């Protein structure tokens, strides 16, 4: 039965997932076990996205199904789920830019790959990035941006991290529609990822995870 939930979620069978979760809750199954299966299912979704079997609509839909699972399970939870994370990452779309689709995909992929991601949202000022790095002690920072104006915001953010004395404590990656190696150099970031999969690979490399 446990396997069924993993598979149903990985295969994006929304109604099946709901039914299994409801049945397991009725049978007084441990809600944490249900969430752990859901996490495994999402991990498979992430792998399928990485291997180009799944695309953005599939990610969006899986996220939606997961939301309904957590909504069903939450009332039965007595203690919070704990899982070991690979590392902490601060992520956001830089100041002046409100695009979120690309950022959300990378955050999703980092999350299902076991990172603790602090998503600051869009139009995030350099100061908010700095504050969040200090607060969380994150070792990786992801800057997203779609517009050409984002190049300057990224550069300013990298400089703000430097002025705060944090530059040697974090690795910074950038990404977005018009980002190239030239932009990476311009901004002073450590690397750029051409897509979400590349972003995950960078984060894993920096966290010292064997791939």
């Amino acid at each position, binding site marked *: 039965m446990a396997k069924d939930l993993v598979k149903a979620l990985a295969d*994006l069978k*929304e109604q099946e997932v709901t039914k299994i979760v409801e049945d397991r809750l009725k049978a007084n199954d441990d809600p944490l076990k249900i969430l752990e299966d859901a996490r495994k299912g999402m991990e498979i979704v992430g792998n399928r996205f990485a291997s180009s079997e*799944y*695309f*953005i*609509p*599939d990610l*969006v*839909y899986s996220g*939606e199904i997961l939301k309904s699972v957590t909504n069903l399970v939450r009332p039965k939870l007595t203690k919070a789920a704990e899982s070991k994370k690979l590392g902490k990452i601060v992520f956001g779309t830089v100041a*002046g*830019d*409100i*695009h979120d*689709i690309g950022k959300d995909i990378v955050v999703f992929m980092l999350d299902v790959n076991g990172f603790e991601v602090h998503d600051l949202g869009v139009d995030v000022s350099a100061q908010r990035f700095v504050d969040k790095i200090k607060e969380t002690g994150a070792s990786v920072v992801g800057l997203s941006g779609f*517009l*050409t*104006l984002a*190049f*300057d915001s990224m550069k300013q953010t990298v400089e703000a991290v430097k002025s705060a004395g944090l530059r040697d404590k974090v690795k910074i990656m950038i990404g977005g*529609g*018009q*980002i*190239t190696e*030239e*932009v990476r150099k*311009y901004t002073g970031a450590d690397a750029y990822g051409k*897509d979400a999969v590349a972003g995950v690979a960078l984060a894993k490399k920096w966290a010292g995870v064997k791939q």
Partner: protein
Amino acid sequence: MEKQREMSSDEKQEELFARWMSPKDTQGNGLKFQSPQAEKAYKERITRTKDAIQMEKLPDRIPVFLMPSFFPVYNAGLTPHEAMYDYDKCCMAFKKLVTDFAPDVQPGAVAPGPGRVYDILDYKLYSWPGHGVPPEQSYQANEREYMTADEYDALIDDPSNFFSSTYLPRVFGALEGFRMLPTLTGILEIYGVAFNFIPFGLPPVQATYRALFEAGAEALKYAGIIGACNAEINAAGFPGLWAGFTKAPFDVIGDTLRGTRGVMLDMYRQPEKLLEAMERLTPIMIKMGVGAAKTMGQPVVFIPLHKGADGFMSDAQFRKFYWPTLRKVMMGLIAEGAVPNPAAEGKWTTRLEIMQDLPKGKVLWMLDQSDIAKAKQTIGKVGCMYGNVPSALLALGTPQDVKDYVKKCIDIAGKGGGYIVSNGAFFDQAKAENVRAMVEATKEYGVYK
């Protein structure tokens, strides 16, 4: 008596090109060019572009199209806010663009748009300079579910009524009163007439109409200044490329009605409704594009493509959801002589094979980051392409980098005609010397011998 023969689509296309070649001024009379040289240059530029599009004979050289968004505004030392609120300044910036860079074709002074009109209508779909984004930045879209998941039937049943009574009041705060309007098709005979007019007496509806009058007057003022500006740019010898725009039905729903997340969930939860709604919108999108071409008297109709890009869906989903109605819209435009200009923003390399299924010499593609060599072997065999010079290169590279890149594009895509040098995506920030290098490199390397 012999019935008058209807023109073929080829003849209709020729007629639109001929009208483009003989532009009108704002009064509808033949445009007076600045000089005989300007008139000659205008016609040469169109001929060059037409030859590239039709792919029947080689142009004298590869044309160059400059496709900025707010770049002309920055180039003139203005902020986007100034360009959106002072129409004369906006006009000055776009006139400066053609005198500074002399491209073969350009889009005219249309990108900034009238900020006051959006203020009056309380437009929520966008944030614009001074209204949600800083004065020195470009506008950005606020994507939301402006149409909810359960409203497909209402859209399919009567798209126009759905827009006026439901969608428009959600995206324009000032059009709140439209929610109270009756369906006008209920006004049929003397019995009941008065009841149908009751809503027009209600204060919220009257407030909405007052806002409309004000917005209309402002839009007219804007159109007068920008129309005269574009006519002046034409009179100096520089044709504008676009008659107007239309959209792929999937993007109509995915961009501004349901939003990206919404439309993606609909692909799973209610695919039949989504498909039906797109079919319903198809003739409407055809009429929109054809209407623009006929009114403006020029063939090229812009179609910005968004949510069919690589990664945004699988090829199977693309074949099912995105391509069929987009192709129908393009075929509908072609039948009426218009030249659809689908703009493949971002990367569309995996879609190229599917998208080559179109008649030859009828379509103008914009390429952003798709593989240009593959594009030349697929969509480029039947259709003209422009673009591929990256925004990042124009913003951060050197003039020599730009020239090298343009030369590479010409070598790959220019062979045998059917290519126009251009940047790949609308750009705001760029170095002027890089933009100049793009134009100069085309004139230098792009001559067909």
